[in-house]
């Protein structure tokens, strides 16, 4: 396969392929972080995660149209505002859903799965009624498209860099929130012992709601970012759901670090296999390997050993 190429060319290709793997990694991290917060910390299965992402994407679409129409001079920076608003919109919807639905179901995790699946159907239909069945094209500021030529041979997509930077910053933000803020301490306290946490004066109800909201908000930001690399349509959220869940479960549900490690290993495996095999087979093999490992090690990559 490589006989006809010079070393420089091969080096360049592998560098870019490594980069492609990193982009995929960032995409997985963005997809999975919100879910990891919700699933890992609250044990809630949010099957509507993809639809929360798409809400962020539609917010971005609306904001881009507003800027194009009224503030064309600021179009170059609209994306940041859009991401912020995406966070707010998805987060607010998340707060509402937690209040209306999820909080009644904490003792029945499998039922949250079904109820949120119902929610995802409803959201899809709402998107379809509001934005139409067709995909919408989100215009991206020029500076974010195109690529950065590092050498003659190596070109790095700018939106890839953007996604990577975003993934790192959001991971950091989540890390700081979880491990440095009062909220984070409360969430972890509740996760470990709900009754006790309530007894020492933590408002468990509000903390739960906020956790769910933040998880959904992060999904919204991810959806906003994905307008650069993917499609925005009523059913686009479904494309992400299986991958996302596998990343979280594979990482070990209780661990954010695990989520990141699992995103890394799955993305690298998939990206390398895609390079050497055909696309469909790469996907099947990746999924099979992940599921196979999960069968041998159901607790995922990272899991604390606990006294029962």
């Amino acid at each position, binding site marked *: 396969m490589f006989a006809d190429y010079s070393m420089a060319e091969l080096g360049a290709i592998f560098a870019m392929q490594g980069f492609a793997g990193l982009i995929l990694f960032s995409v997985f991290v963005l997809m999975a972080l919100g879910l990891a917060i919700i699933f890992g910390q609250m044990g809630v299965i949010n099957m509507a995660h993809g639809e929360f992402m798409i809400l962020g994407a539609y917010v971005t679409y609306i904001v881009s149209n507003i800027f194009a129409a009224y503030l064309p001079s600021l179009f170059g920076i609209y994306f940041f505002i859009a991401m912020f608003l995406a966070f707010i919109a998805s987060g607010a919807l998340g707060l509402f859903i937690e209040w209306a639905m999820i909080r009644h179901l904490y003792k029945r995790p499998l039922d949250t799965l079904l*109820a949120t699946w119902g929610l995802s159907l409803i959201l899809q239909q709402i998107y379809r009624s509001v934005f139409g069945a067709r995909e919408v094209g989100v215009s991206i500021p020029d500076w974010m498209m195109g690529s950065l030529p590092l050498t003659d041979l190596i070109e790095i997509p700018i939106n890839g860099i953007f996604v990577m930077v975003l993934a790192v910053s959001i991971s950091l933000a989540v890390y700081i929130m979880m491990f440095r803020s009062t909220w984070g301490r409360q969430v972890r306290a509740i996760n470990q012992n709900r009754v006790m946490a309530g007894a020492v004066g933590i408002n468990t109800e509000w903390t739960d709601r906020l956790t769910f909201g933040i998880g959904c908000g992060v999904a919204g930001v991810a959806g906003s970012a994905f307008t650069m690399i993917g499609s925005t349509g009523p059913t686009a959220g479904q494309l992400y759901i299986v991958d996302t869940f*596998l990343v979280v479960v594979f990482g070990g549900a209780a661990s954010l670090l695990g989520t990141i490690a699992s995103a890394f290993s799955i993305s690298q495996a998939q990206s390398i296999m895609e390079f050497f095999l055909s696309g469909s087979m790469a996907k099947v093999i990746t999924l099979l390997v992940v*599921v196979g490992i999960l069968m041998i090690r159901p607790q995922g990559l990272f899991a604390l050993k606990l006294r029962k």
Partner: protein
Amino acid sequence: MTLTNYMNRKELLGFLILAAVIFIVLPLALDTFRLNLFGKYLTYAFVAIGLALCWGAGGILSLGQGIFFGLGGYCMAMFLKLEASTPENTAIQSTPGIPDFMDWNQLTALPIWWQPFHSLAFTMLAVVMVPVVFAFIIGFAMFTRRVGGVYFAIITQAFAAILTILIIGQQGYTGGVNGITDLRTLLGWDIRTDEAKNILYFVNGALLFVVLLIAQFVRKSKLGRLLIAMRDQEDRVRFSGYNVANFKIFIFCLGAAFAGVGGAMFTLQVGFMSPTLVGIVPSIEMVIFCAVGGRLSILGAVYGALLVNLAKTTFSEGFPELWLLGLGGLFIAVVMAFPNGLAGLWSEKVEPLLNRLISKTQSAEAANPNKAPAE
């Protein structure tokens, strides 16, 4: 030990009513087209019954029942496709005598693993055994390692995704995204005629009752009680000397076998099989059939499958744009307001009401001695 241990009078009445609905009311009330539709809905009931056992009784939620439905359906479709692909029917192909999609994909000979499907006996065995073997592999790997609950649900869902991608990707062998279509005869008997559809409906109904009776037997056996015990206190069951994994594997395999039979009947009645029945979405819909009917009740599962599908057809004919809202709302309503589904509604609301009415009339009769005595 008498039969009443396996079915009390109330349950017997429930079975008889369902039998009357399936074998008398529906055939009399509906034309062949609608009856065939109901036949299709009833094939989902096979899956829902399996789920009522696995999920309702055993607490094992599988989001991959579409896998087993699909495997059963594909086995049947392979047999029918081979029968439809006679050299005469496929004379225009480069290789006559093999299924058309194989010819389109440059296959020049029937793959070896298709060969046994020339035999109906083998196919009927495969319809049950292929899903069971799959379920056994998944169940063995997961349950002996004590994977359960949410993890099990997600991993089965991943399997459904994998199988769909595989079927679509290997289109030379599986018909790809189109599925296996244009099925015509079963041992020379044309399954597309109205008469055949009517007969298939009754065969389907009869098989459904066989499955229902098996399910009832299992539920009423000690194994049924063990499932409930496991759902509530898995450790206690273990320390009463049971190998919990084996029981879970068994019930999961049983559900898979039911689903396989349902899939085969689907293929026969609808006339094709396609990967859209294998994937994540149909698998979750099958769970909702069960949930709507009442996850604990096997009869409820049948009604759930019938009603949800009837609603789907009606709504999507009348208000197609609203259908998803309705279905989504149904999911949420069932989970939040009626966790025991229709069966729960019946036993919690309707039955007490009926009892009250009956006792009222009785007391009214008692209060009115002039009327004819009650007995």
